[in-house]
């Protein structure tokens, strides 16, 4: 099948009176890595649970690998692999037994199972650990085993719900390497994340999702380019007045006021615009304290489209998951290799 592996039309989902998913439509193409980027509680997990048939579809239409999620759940289940947000491995079984069990519940033939287990242990560098019990693995290895398990049945699409949540940056980057390798082998990947740099570095296309709605979809570059080539950050003695002045300039596309600084999107090359901006502000009797020029990052993209930072902060790529784990009910602290 060429074209779209996932097709979602007007999907809606409510918990009681709370609308968690609000009229979402998107498609995921064969062979790409597609990310849902958004804060906790934006509705990402709900969408993934509906697509993986773990939650009943309430309203709208969703097809995975050509199968209707509501009408052909078993065909969907046979087409997908899942890595859940929370670690869920059997700690009392070895690495290869965990994979063996998975192969068995999907009715894979014995020969096929052992061959696939060998391939996957190699892919995830767990060959030397194959007889190690789940509980004796490090956090990163556990995640890799889950990755291997998700791929056991050679799924058309692999779903990952916050695959690197709570991991330190090294472990996270290694995980990305494995995911790129899986993509190279032709598996479509759908992932949710609230880490900006994860979406940025890994995905072919990103949907920014907030309050149950998709705000914008595009490649990382497309999204960033919409903000112009460069962004100017200014700190002045009177940000409010400075913003007024800047908004009247033709070369300025957009000004957002932060608590401390002004973020300025511009239409032209920064080298020409910056002197003009500074002159205008000084002419208004405002003192400039700090000037900073930056290439737009996913953070900027997020702020631009949603009008706020990722809630609970921490989207800025410092690799620290503090605060988020608690919120998700996960007890793991920072997990490292």
């Amino acid at each position, binding site marked *: 099948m060429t074209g779209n592996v996932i097709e979602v039309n007007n999907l809606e989902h409510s918990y009681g009176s709370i609308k968690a998913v609000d009229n979402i439509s998107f498609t995921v193409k064969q062979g790409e890595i597609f990310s849902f980027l958004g804060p906790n509680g934006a509705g990402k997990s709900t969408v993934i*649970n509906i697509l*993986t*048939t*773990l*939650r009943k579809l309430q309203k709208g239409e969703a097809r995975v690998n050509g199968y209707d999620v509501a009408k052909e759940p*078993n065909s969907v*289940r*046979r087409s997908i692999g*899942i890595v*859940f947000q*929370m*670690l*869920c*491995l*059997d*700690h*009392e*079984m070895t690495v290869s*037994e965990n994979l063996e*069990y*998975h192969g*068995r*519940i*999907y*009715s894979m033939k014995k020969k096929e199972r052992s061959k696939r287990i060998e391939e996957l242990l190699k892919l995830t560098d767990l060959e030397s650990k194959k007889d190690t019990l789940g509980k004796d693995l490090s956090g990163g290895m556990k995640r890799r085993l889950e990755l291997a*398990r998700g791929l056991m049945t050679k799924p058309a699409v692999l779903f990952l719900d916050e695959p690197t949540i709570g991991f330190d940056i090294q472990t996270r980057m290694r995980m990305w390497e494995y995911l790129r390798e899986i993509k190279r082998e032709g598996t479509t990947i759908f992932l949710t994340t609230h880490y900006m740099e994860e979406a940025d570095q890994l995905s072919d296309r990103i949907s920014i999702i907030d309050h149950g709605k998709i705000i914008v979809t595009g490649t990382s570059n497309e999204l960033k380019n919409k903000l112009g080539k460069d962004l100017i950050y200014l700190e002045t003695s009177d940000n409010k007045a400075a913003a007024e002045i800047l908004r009247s300039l033709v070369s300025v596309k957009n000004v957002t006021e932060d608590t401390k600084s002004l973020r300025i999107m511009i239409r032209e090359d920064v080298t020409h615009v910056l002197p003009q901006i500074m002159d205008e502000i000084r002419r208004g009797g405002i003192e400039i304290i700090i000037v900073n020029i930056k290439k737009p990052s996913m953070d900027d993209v997020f702020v631009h489209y949603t009008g706020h930072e990722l809630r609970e902060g921490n989207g800025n790529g410092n690799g620290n998951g503090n605060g988020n784990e608690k919120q998700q009910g996960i007890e793991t602290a920072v997990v490292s290799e």
Partner: protein
Amino acid sequence: MSFEFRAIYWREMLKYFRYKSMLITSMIQPVMWLAFFGLAMSDSFDKLTSLVPNEPGVPVVAYISYMGAGIIAMDVLFSSLFGGTTLMFDKKFSLLRETLASPVPRSHIILGIGLSAVTKALFQTFIIIGFGRLVGMEFFKGYTLIETLIAIVGITLLVSIFTLGFLFLSGSIAITVENPEGMQSILTLVSMPIFFVSTALYPIDGFPTFLKVLSMFNPMSLLAGGIRYFALGTNFSVMGNHYIYTTVDIVVAFLGLIFFALVMLSAAMWRFNKVDI
């Protein structure tokens, strides 16, 4: 026809044999019951009832042989009642998610665990029968080889159906409660009347009427009686009580246990279909 329950069964048995402590205690426990409780009880019962005259012409059975059937029933009751606990932990540690997200029908999850419990129960049953011989428990006395085989098949079937019934009950509780303590106290509560209001250890002739009636419908009594039918014969006396088991009794025991197992299966399915990820 799908066979996914085999995967569930495989996992349960793998873990059963992996943990030697679990395996060995489950094997030793019935022997201990028989060795300590059984011998002590049978000695005192025999002493107390030694003066009671037996009916002439009726074969007399030692109390320990009578009680042996009850020990089997008791052992199987406890192991199957606690057998569902695995589901509670699987749910608690989100292990169930993997299986629930797979194409395995939910009924197969219960069936797979049920069959593993049956396997374990049969191990224990035959350990008791085997060890019992050493301490004077006389099952299949005077039976021909064919009769013995038929009796073994009969006991196997009864124990299997009984185990499935209580495993389904235990599974429904396990999937509903949230913590091990809750599970533990519910199981203790459930097991006590089932165990004591039955013919497992003693005849019910001396029971007050309402307990007698309850006991007659107790799966535990049906199992203990059924095992006695197969292991001790249809006509014997123990402690001065004359027992006659008829074909009707054994048919009732089978039907009663099958009915019980089916009711418990539907309870388990009902609870299971409510499980959300």
